[in-house]
C-alpha cells in the first residue's frame, strides 16, 4: 500500500475523485440535454417543408435563459444527491464543495457553449436548406427584411462578442443556485419559506403604507395634487429601475461572491444520512 505520509492534500482530499464524479454524472446530463435540444431544433426544420409557413429564423445565439434553468437543476442535484454520494465514502467537505463548484462551472460553461454550437449548426442547416430547396423551404427572419446570410453572420459575431459576459453571468448564477441547493439540502421548509416569504413580506411592508397614503391623497386631494403624486411615483420607480439596471452587474457579482463562502458554511454543518 502507498504510504499516506507521501500524499499531497489534493490526494488525501480526493479532489480528483470529486471531479471524476462530475465528469461522469454532469457530463452525461449535459450531453443528453444538448442532444435533446439539437433533436428538437432539427425537428422544427421539417415544418416549413410540410406546410406553407416559412421558417422563422432568429440568428445565432448562446441560450442564456435555458442555461440558467439547467444550472438551477444541476446545482440542486449536485448539492443534494452528488454531495451525499461523495461524503458517504468519507470525502472531506472542503473537497466536495470545491469540486462541486469547479464541476458545475465547467459543466454550465460547456452547456452554454453547446447551445451556441447548436445554434450555429441550426443556422448552417437553415442556410443550406434555404439554398438547396428554395421552393419548399422558405425562411422568414425575425428582423424585418434582413437576409438570412447577413443575419447569420451578424448574430454570430454579436454572440461571440457577448460570450465572455454570458459566461460570467453563468458562473455568477451557478454560485447563487449552488447556495440555494445547499440550503434546500439542509432544510427545505425554511429555505422555501425564506425564498418566497421574504420578498412577499418586503413587498407588503413597502406597498401597503404607500397604497394607504395614495388612497388618502386620492380621497382628499384635487386634480393637480393627484397629478403631482402620480409624477412622484413614476419618478421614484424610474430612479429605482435605473439604479438596478445600472448597478445590476455589481449587485450580481457581489451576491455571487458572498454566496460562495455561505454555501460552504451551509453544507459544512449539514448532517448526512
Amino acid at each position, binding site marked *: *500500500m*502507498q504510504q499516506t505520509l507521501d500524499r499531497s492534500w489534493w490526494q*488525501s482530499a480526493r479532489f480528483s475523485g470529486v*471531479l471524476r464524479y462530475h465528469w461522469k454524472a454532469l457530463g*452525461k446530463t449535459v450531453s443528453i440535454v444538448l442532444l435533446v435540444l439539437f433533436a428538437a431544433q432539427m425537428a422544427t426544420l421539417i415544418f416549413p417543408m410540410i406546410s406553407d409557413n416559412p421558417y422563422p429564423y432568429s440568428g445565432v445565439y448562446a441560450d442564456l435563459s435555458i442555461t440558467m434553468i439547467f444550472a438551477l437543476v444541476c446545482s440542486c442535484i449536485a448539492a443534494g444527491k452528488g454531495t451525499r454520494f461523495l461524503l458517504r465514502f468519507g470525502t472531506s*467537505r*472542503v473537497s466536495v464543495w470545491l469540486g462541486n463548484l469547479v464541476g458545475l462551472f465547467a459543466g454550465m460553461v460547456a452547456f452554454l457553449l453547446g447551445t451556441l454550437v447548436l445554434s450555429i449548426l441550426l443556422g448552417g442547416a437553415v442556410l443550406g436548406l434555404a439554398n438547396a430547396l428554395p421552393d419548399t423551404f422558405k425562411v422568414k427572419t425575425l428582423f424585418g427584411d434582413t437576409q438570412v446570410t447577413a443575419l447569420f453572420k451578424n448574430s454570430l459575431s454579436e454572440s461571440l462578442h457577448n460570450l465572455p459576459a454570458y459566461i460570467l453571468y453563468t458562473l455568477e448564477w451557478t454560485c447563487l443556485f449552488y447556495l440555494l441547493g445547499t440550503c434546500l439540502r439542509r432544510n427545505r421548509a425554511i429555505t422555501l419559506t425564506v425564498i418566497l416569504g421574504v420578498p412577499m413580506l418586503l413587498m407588503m411592508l413597502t406597498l401597503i403604507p404607500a397604497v394607504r397614503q395614495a388612497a388618502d391623497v386620492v380621497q382628499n386631494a384635487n386634480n393637480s395634487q393627484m397629478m403631482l403624486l402620480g409624477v412622484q411615483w413614476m419618478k421614484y420607480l424610474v430612479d429605482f429601475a435605473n439604479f438596478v439596471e445600472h448597478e445590476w452587474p455589481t449587485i450580481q457579482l457581489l451576491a455571487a461572491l458572498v454566496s460562495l463562502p455561505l454555501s460552504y458554511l451551509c453544507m459544512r454543518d449539514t448532517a448526512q444520512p
Partner: protein
Amino acid sequence: MQASVDTASPSGGETILQVSSVNRRFRATKALNDLSLNIPKGQIVGLLGRNGAGKSTLLRIVGGMLKPNQGEVTIDGEKVYDHARALGKLCMIGDTPDFGSLSKIGDLFYVCRGLFPNWNETYARELISRFELPLNKRMKTFSRGMQTGLMLSVGLASGAELTVYDEPSLGLDAVMRERFYDLLVDEKQRYPGRTFLLSTHLIDEVARVLDYSVLIDAGHLLCAGTVSELQRGYLSVSGEPEVVRELTAGLTTLKEEELAGTLVRHVKLNAQADQIRIEADSRVRTAPVNLQRLFVFLTEEEEAERHATNA
C-alpha cells in the same frame, strides 16, 4: 473483562482509530453516551451491538458525516471531522448502497480511481465476477444483494488504511456472506496494514473472522478485546446434568440448555481456578462461550444494572 476500556493501546498494538468521550444526542435520545474506545491497526474489528445501540451513529461520526456534540474522533492521531488528511485514510461503506447519479459499474470504478489513491482496478474487476455482478447493467436495476455486493467490492478494492462497513451483510444470501468473509480474511493477509471495522448485530456469523471485538450497548462501551480475551472468564460445560450442576455450583449461569439427557451450561467463572477444576474433570466437556451468548449475557447484565440504578 473490560479488556480495553482503558483506551491507551488495545492488545498492545498500534491504534488507528481513537474515539474519546464522544457524546451525540438526537433531540431527547442520547445515541452515544461518553463513548471511548481504540481500534487497533491491521486487524478485522467487529463493532457489535443490538439494533439502536449506537453503532451506525458512531460510524457516521467516524466517517465525518455527523459531528459529535462532545468528544473527538481521530484517525492516526488526526481529527476526523472535515479534515482531509484523516478522512483520506478511510473508506466508508454505509448500510444503504448509494451510487449518486452514476449508472454503470464502470462509471463507479472510474470515480473510485480518483477517490482512493490505492485503488486496485484489477482486483475490483475480479471481485465483480466473484459476486456475479453484470458489468453493463444499470446499478439501479440491481437487486439489494447485488448492490450490497458491489459496495463490499468497492471497500475491498479501495486499499484504504481503514475500511468501515456498516451492516455489510444486509441483503446478501448465505453463500455471498461467507464469500465476503473469506475475501476479507484474504485481503487482510495480503495487506496486513489494512484495518477493517465491521458493524453488525449478526455476531455468530462474523465471529470467525474477527481479531478484535468492541461491544456497545445503549451508546456506551460494554467491553472490548480480542475474541479470546473476551471469552476468558466464561466457559461452556456439557455432560450429565447432575455432574454439570455439581461442578458449576456457585458460578453465575448465563444460559442452560438440556437436550437428550445432556445439559449444557454457560457459566461465568469466579477465578482461573474454577476453569482448571472443571476442565480437569473427565465427566464433562468444556468449550469457550460463543461470542453471541456472551454478548447477550453482558447486555442483559448491563440492563439489569441500569434498571437497578434507575429504581
